[in-house]
């Protein structure tokens, strides 16, 4: 059974909502990414999106864009590096499901066959490719299904009658974009958000998760009532950005990780 499905099944039994953080791998460096992944698990994350740094992140706002720039300028982090970080995190004892978040071009340049060889049996359970809409994803979707890796689709408040078609093909969960625009922390969500989430909920029995702009415990709880999962990206990436100076020095690294742990614990409601 795919680890994402298993996680949602367990969460459902426990009556909990999944907290799904996103981090850009290689920000500030690959080894620290392994530490950050462990920290997120300890702080109550249920799955993690591992972001592949990209030069032209169309769906992302300035915070994640800056993280990509840091990762690319620090070490020209590649798709292969990100998968290697996932392997190392597994070796370090991390159990939660990994979802690879990447734009399509790095996958295309790797070659689809080689890409699936790369990710299969490396602990990657899902894929999110934000610039690969339904109309373009047939080949990759079929290859993903063949190796039981879930291609997780996005739906937006503007998807209208596309919601049903997208949801019908969804595996793992349906990623519901909470607001128009790019990723980034925001106070206001799309005006029709509740109706939109109800529409997606009604269109599928696959779990649904909400993301884009969610940054605090209050919002996690608000959307936790309507969805099976909540995705937090920019707020965590910004927290990492703030702690980069601490993370980069050996003597202050634990302090930096402690700040990330505290923030994510608050989001997950597992304040210890």
């Amino acid at each position: 059974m795919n680890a994402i499905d298993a996680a949602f099944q367990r969460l459902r039994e426990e009556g909990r909502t999944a907290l799904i953080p996103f981090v850009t791998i290689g920000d500030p460096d690959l080894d620290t990414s392994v530490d950050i992944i462990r920290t997120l698990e300890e702080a109550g994350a249920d799955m993690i999106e591992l972001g592949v740094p990209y030069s032209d992140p169309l769906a992302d706002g300035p915070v994640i864009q800056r993280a990509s720039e840091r990762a690319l300028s620090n070490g020209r982090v590649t798709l292969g590096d990100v998968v290697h970080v996932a392997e190392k995190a597994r070796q370090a004892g991390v159990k939660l499901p990994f979802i690879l978040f990447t734009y399509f071009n790095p996958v295309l340049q790797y070659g689809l066959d080689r890409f699936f060889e790369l990710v299969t049996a490396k602990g990657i359970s899902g894929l999110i490719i934000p610039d690969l809409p339904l109309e373009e994803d047939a080949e990759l979707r079929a290859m993903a299904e063949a190796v039981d890796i879930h291609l997780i689709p996005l739906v937006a408040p503007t998807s209208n009658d596309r919601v049903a078609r997208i949801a019908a093909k969804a595996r793992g969960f349906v990623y519901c974009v909470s607001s128009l625009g790019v990723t980034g922390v925001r106070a206001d969500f799309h005006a029709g958000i509740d109706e939109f989430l109800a529409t997606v909920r009604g269109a599928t029995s696959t779990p649904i998760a909400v993301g884009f702009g969610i940054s605090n415990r209050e919002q996690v709880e608000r959307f936790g009532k309507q969805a099976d999962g909540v995705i937090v990206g920019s707020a965590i990436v910004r927290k990492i950005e703030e702690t980069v100076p601490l993370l980069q020095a050996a003597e202050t690294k634990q302090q930096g990780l402690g700040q990330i742990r505290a923030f994510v614990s608050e989001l997950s409601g597992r304040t210890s």
Partner: protein
Amino acid sequence: MNQVPDMNGRFGKFGGRYVPETLMNALLELEEAYQHYSKDPDFIAEVRYLLNKYSGRPTSLYHAQRLSEHLGGAQIYLKREDLNHTGAHKINNTIGQGVLAKRMGKTKIIAETGAGQHGVASATVAALLGMECKVFMGEEDTKRQELNVFRMQLLGAEVVPVTSGTRTLKDACNETLRYWVSHVDDTYYILGSVTGPHPYPMMVRDFQRIIGDEAREQILKDAGRLPDYVVAAVGGGSNAIGIFYPFIGDDGVKLLGVEAAGRGVDTEEHAATMTKGRHGVFQGSLSYVLQDEHGQVQPAHSISAGLDYPGIGPEHSYLKDTGRADYVPITDAEALEGLQLLSRTEGIIPALESAHAIAQVMKLAPTLSRDQIILVSLSGRGDKDVQAIMGYLGGEGNHGH
């Protein structure tokens, strides 16, 4: 050749719609509106009226006799897109899309610009149609093209400097798409070239094909026959596809795209997408892209801010791979020679983009006979570049040549 693109916006394997789901509805809406209005006689008449009475079409086809004599080979004809209102072919497309935006009930226009020509054309059309306009421009380009920034502001547009990434056209495009995602309700994105997701490459081509339609008719009338070569500069490729398109079915006419080789295709500093790029997905479509082995898009360089782009329109990629068109690189230095030669032989100062096409003609014309014909798209005038050219040439203009 089959009609391209197909229903999915594919030119062979190229094109498509590789965009975030948040944009899909806007693109489908745009495609539907375009399909509808492009067949609507009122819409066609309004666009035609503005092209004729406002922009000054048809632009002339000029037999450059002194240039032809100087090069001592083929007869060179210039399609004078530089004579358009605002100084370049860009206005053909912005008039078309501006009128479409208005018909779709949008009140605001956004656009990206590199050299500023598309930005000026968009700001112009926005002023003409009474719409608000925001133009995204790489911070680097706002410095290189100060005068055009001021022009856009005079026309009432807001120029937004883009500070992400390479701070040039590529990042201005990303930023415009990002802004559009958040404001799709009332905002229309006038994309400036035959790039981006479907339906833009098709739609912009359709608005630009007037260059080739006119030129084909004019050359038949003036020279009594079709040209042997059609030559045009390509960045994104809108002027080139505009002049190529009506000649695609004419097998005897060779189509030659000229891309920017910057400091040379053997250096890291060029914008020679066809010569050095590989198939990839960039800014919404599958095409040739300048990228590293991991799929990271590489910065481009050209003396011309308008050619300084790591991608190219998908239809050009299709024409290259099917062998219908050829693409060759021209360096910054060669382009400057082309610019000076045209200025001195014909009294026409071309835009730096068009200077690349002229530089290719300098190589090509002497290899042909006097009864052969080269048709060149002179896509824009050099006024916008004069300051930059002065910086490159310094006082050199007083010596030699």
